[in-house]
């Protein structure tokens, strides 16, 4: 399996565990056992599952298994693959810190962290679609 696929799948597994850890924090707070302002982690909990885990796993398997782009260039662009990997994970991590910081401090710079995270995630999705579109081939 290509190195990018290995990275995507292993990183996805890490997000799976991290998401459930966030879930424990959120449930612990609901149960009155954890006295920290963790509600602002709820969106990261959802998106670690939906984007960090499931989407990232799909992206890794698609890059590996979808029909070849060309014989010489089976996975189209490794470069776009790296752009997807880096922006997706940086975007998710910025969101993990940006949202709680913005909720607790209401600082403008924390708001800009969220905007940066939004842009990074959008770049990740776009780079993945560009690299994958030409590999969706009818036979």
């Amino acid at each position, binding site marked *: 399996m290509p190195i990018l696929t290995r990275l995507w799948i292993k990183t996805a597994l890490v997000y799976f565990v991290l998401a459930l850890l966030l879930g424990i924090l959120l449930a612990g707070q609901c149960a009155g056992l954890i006295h920290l302002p963790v509600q602002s982690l709820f969106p990261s909990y959802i998106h670690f599952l*939906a984007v960090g885990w499931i989407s990232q796993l799909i992206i890794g398997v698609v890059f590996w298994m979808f029909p070849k782009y060309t014989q010489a260039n089976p996975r189209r662009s490794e470069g776009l693959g790296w752009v997807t990997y880096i922006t997706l994970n940086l975007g998710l991590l910025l969101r993990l810190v940006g949202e709680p910081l*913005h909720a607790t401090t209401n600082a403008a710079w924390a708001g800009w962290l*969220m905007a940066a995270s939004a842009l990074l*995630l959008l770049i990740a999705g776009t780079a*993945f679609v560009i690299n994958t579109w030409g590999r*969706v081939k009818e*036979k």
Partner: protein
Amino acid sequence: MPRLSAWFIRASLIYLLMGFTLGALLLANNGVEFMPSAWALLPAHVEFTLVGWIVQLALGTAYWILPRHTNGPARGSLALGWASFGLFNLGILLAASSGLLPGTFQLAGRILQMLAAGLLAVLFWPRVKAYGL
């Protein structure tokens, strides 16, 4: 991959783009408010990413790689397959209209999605089988 899978998968990639774009607008707007009405986009964001992208990609891939029939059309009735594609995608668009159109539109969307799911279950069911059958 068969043409129908390619269409399911292409549609899922388009929904990924639309869903991520709406998500990015929502997230950026939560941080640096520039569009007070952005919250109205949340139902469409959820529908596009969860159903349009993730579920639809799984459907297209299942239609492609599940074991094929040994007699007759390899993947079952093409007409049923295309009907499921049409119903499912119309269903997504209608279901995503929450907050923009009256509730009957979302109800119609869910009904279309359920009909598509029923057709796909009929198509997939006999293809889930042991080796050699």
